[in-house]
């Protein structure tokens, strides 16, 4: 008798309308997961990479295939940043919803304008792409535009909650505009400063802050620093008096440290995306952190 009532309960349960499944989001980079979390906090979120990984070089691992298989919406930087691994994931995940051109696949660089676009890539130019610099999450104005695009796309793949997504975006973007004004005021002393970089990761940030890049540790974009190239930079860096030699958290610090020893210019390691394990969990916290670090460097001079 008991078994039968149990059985009845299960059958009843099976007949009930399924609870609304939370939207499943796949972000190629953690900044898009963080942005989506602001705009759709109930969605299930997963990021393929984290702040300590070079997003250009990711393995199309089985775990990523499994995650993309179940995604309703994938959000990626685009501009060929993920060219080495996302196509392999899309091909193996067998999820028609996240193929290029589908509503479930959003490339931010295709809806927000990139810098340094090229009509053609000269032979031997290194890893540069005609689509321009893909690291556009580091410009707060472009991040706001990305927020608008993500919100629209959320409404498209989950129309039942479209109004909710729109309202959330409006609240978020209003708060973002206020922050933008604060950041601009705080960043005033950084305007006109010079900097040495390793790769074009922070180019959007430098443009926004009015900081000039005087040297790149990479001989050509995407090609790791070589001793020969570093040697040619010494004079340039000594005379340019830059604020710091900046490298990303995912890059080995060796080259920057070598040049720092030779020139006396300090090394500054910065995150190029959010890093919840270090208290940088939202896009706003990322810009706060970047400004804090740069201003600290400026004050120490």
């Amino acid at each position: 008798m008991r078994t039968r009532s149990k059985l009845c309960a299960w059958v009843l349960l099976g007949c009930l309308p399924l609870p609304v499944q939370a939207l499943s989001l796949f972000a190629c980079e953690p900044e898009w997961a963080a942005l989506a979390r602001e705009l759709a906090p109930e969605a299930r979120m997963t990021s393929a990479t984290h702040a300590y990984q070079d997003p250009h070089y990711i393995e199309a691992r089985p775990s990523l295939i499994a995650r993309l298989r179940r995604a309703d919406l994938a959000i990626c930087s685009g501009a060929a940043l993920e060219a080495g691994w996302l196509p392999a994931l899309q091909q193996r995940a067998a999820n028609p919803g996240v193929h290029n051109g589908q509503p479930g696949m959003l490339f931010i660089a295709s809806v927000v304008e990139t810098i340094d676009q090229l009509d053609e890539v000269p032979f031997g130019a290194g890893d540069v792409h005609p689509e321009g610099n893909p690291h556009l999450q580091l410009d707060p104005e472009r991040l706001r535009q990305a927020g608008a695009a993500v919100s629209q796309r959320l409404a498209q793949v989950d129309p039942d909650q479209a109004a909710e997504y729109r309202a959330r975006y409006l609240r978020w973007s209003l708060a973002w505009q206020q922050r933008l004004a604060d950041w601009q005021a705080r960043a005033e002393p950084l305007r006109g400063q010079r900097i040495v970089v390793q790769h074009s990761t922070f180019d959007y940030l430098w443009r926004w802050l009015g900081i000039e890049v005087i040297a790149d540790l990479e001989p050509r974009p995407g090609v790791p620093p070589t001793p020969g190239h570093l040697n040619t930079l010494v004079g340039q860096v000594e005379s340019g008096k830059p604020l710091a030699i900046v490298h990303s958290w995912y890059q080995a610090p060796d080259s920057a440290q070598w040049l720092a020893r030779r020139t006396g210019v300090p090394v500054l390691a910065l995150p190029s995306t959010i890093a919840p394990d270090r208290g940088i969990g939202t896009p706003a916290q990322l810009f706060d952190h970047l400004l804090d670090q740069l201003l600290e460097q400026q004050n120490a001079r």
Partner: protein
Amino acid sequence: MVSSPVRWLLPLTLLTSLQAQAELQTPEISLTIDAYHKSDNTALGGRLEGWGLSHTELGVRQQFGNVATGKFTAVAEANEEETDFSIEEAYLQSLSLPAGLTLRGGRFLSDLGYLNGQHPHADSFSERPLLYRAFLGGHYYDDGLGLSMVMPTDLYWRISAEAFDGGELGEFEGNPTVGTWALSTSLGGDLSESQSWQAGVSYLRNRMLESGAEAHGHHHDHHDHGADGHHGHSHGAEYAGEHLYMADLVWKWAPRGNNRNQQLTLSAEYARVTDLNEYAGSDDYHEGWYGSAVYRFAPRWSAGVRHGRVDLKLGHGDHFHDGALKETTAMLAWNPTHTQTLRLQYTHQDVVEDWHDTFAGADNAVTLQYIISFGAHDAHAF
């Protein structure tokens, strides 16, 4: 029965007719050149000694809206003795099936084992392991249909079923419509931020070898004296049986999952071939395995070692003789850019047990290999 060159043209005709209807994206064209110099011939296939081109491929990929994608790969191999052209891939693959399903039709690489579905220029060593060369002719592609399914699970889980004509596995007496069929499954996931894994089992049924019929490959060894009889690119499986079972395991480590600067890859595979012919008892089976370790210690440098062995039953009338060969390989590779690889490899072969000079070609060899690709190349698999 349609003859082989016509058969691979069928999917292509289909491609062109689809092309006429759909509004098309531009096709992606890729060219991969694999040039080498090898100091000596070695046993059980692989590259021939001297200068040559191995697995130089021209690929065209065309997407048909969101419905399907087509792939065509022509391969050229050239060495000091001969030049060989073949069509390795000419297939259509579905893109829009529900439930994680993918259907492939035409000529394509079987999903067997860990390495078989991968393109050889992505390999870490200049030649496939012994077991692939002995049991699958290096890599097994054929004309047929394949259905695979990726499960909606947290753990990656893929199941594939394939049916092939069998014409590319080798020359056999039987000629059924479905010459071979295969089942394979693989599982994979992450152990931590730094470690990931994949494991699989696969099975290949050879229906062209029903009792009574016998593989040609079994007897000619005695006359051709091992490797000299099989040229660099032996398409067929030299040691066949009705059933091929394979198991593979791969483990990768990179500090915090950042594989640009450092990565360690350990992989191992095992294969067993049973029911070799009508006289084979339950103890008469071929067996092979390898284990390999490849370490990328700088963004552009990697080094690796691989050790493998095959234990073969060499058919002689109604009985078998034992044969066993070991191979140890060490390599150093430099990637000046992500489209180029320069590899120096040393191969050492050891004949454990021989019969009638089957492994007379066993030798040590130094190989220098240079790979360069142009155009859109496939993103590499795990």
